[in-house]
Every structure is written in C-alpha cells, then in structure tokens.
C-alpha cells in the first residue's frame, strides 16, 4: 500500500490534483478584452448606429444593420 502513490506518476504528493499533462499545445497567457469588468456576469457589447442598409436590402437580409447581418453558411464555413 505505501508504494501506491509512487506508482502513479500523475498524482503528486499532498493530495492536490493537477490536470493531466497530455496537452499538445503549450499554455499561452490569455488576453482578456473584458479585463476590469466585474466577474460573474455576462456582457454583450453596445451596438453603434452605422452601416445601415437601404429599406429594400434591409428587408431581404432580415436586418438594416450590416454588422448584424450574419448568414448561415453551414459545413465548410469554419476558418482554420
């Protein structure tokens, strides 16, 4: 029984469990665009009035706002 811990390479001494180290990418620091905002809350950025479609285009796109015009492209649309 006393050799149990030393046989398990992923379990450090003291009982603290750290994540399994099988990651292929190194850890980079995360840049937080919301730094300074209060945590435990969700935030949607404010839209400003700009890039407004004319009425005909607005109706056909489903919005008069170019910035909100986000069509469904489906499979193959993901940028790699």
């Amino acid at each position, binding site marked *: 029984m006393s050799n149990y811990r030393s046989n398990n390479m992923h379990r450090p001494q003291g009982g603290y469990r750290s994540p399994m180290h099988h990651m292929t990418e190194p850890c980079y620091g995360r840049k937080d665009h919301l730094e300074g905002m209060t945590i435990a809350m969700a935030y949607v950025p404010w*839209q400003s*009035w700009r890039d*407004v479609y004319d*009425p*005909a285009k*607005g*109706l056909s796109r489903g*919005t*008069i*706002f170019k910035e909100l015009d986000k069509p469904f492209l489906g499979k193959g649309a993901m940028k790699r």
Partner: protein
Amino acid sequence: MNNQPNRREMLNTINELSFSVLDIQLFLDTHPCDEDALAYFQECSNARNQALKEYAQYYGPLTIDTATASCSERWSWINDPWPWQEGGC
C-alpha cells in the same frame, strides 16, 4: 385611372419601409437618445404612413386606421385574399 400604381409594388414598398421602421424601433428602445436613429426613424415612418394611405385609396386598407376611406359602403376590411393565402402577399 391612369397612373394607378401597381399593387404588388406598393405592398413591397410598404413591407420595406415598415421593416426599416421596426428595426430602428428596436434599436431606439435600447438607444433612446441616438439622434441618427431618431432622424432616420422620422424619415422612414413618414414615408410608410404616406404609402399606407395611398395603398388604402386604391386597394383597400391594410390597417384599421386607414379603413375609413374605403369602408363607407361595405366592410372591405374582411376582403380576401388574407395574407397567408395565395395572392395575399
């Protein structure tokens, strides 16, 4: 009547102007002081009201508030096609 505007074109114009008014309305609900939005609302809303009045003169009312011009002799409000029926859009 010469120069009677095409019904489909008039309805299309009303759809387009009304949609602009609605999308601006939602924007103004959360941005009540935005002057650009307020100005564009005035422009689209005035054009829309004008178009609704004109449509009612030729083709019957789309709103109860434009019904007086065309509903004095019969209640044309109930005329078909209704919007979900063929020819209704």
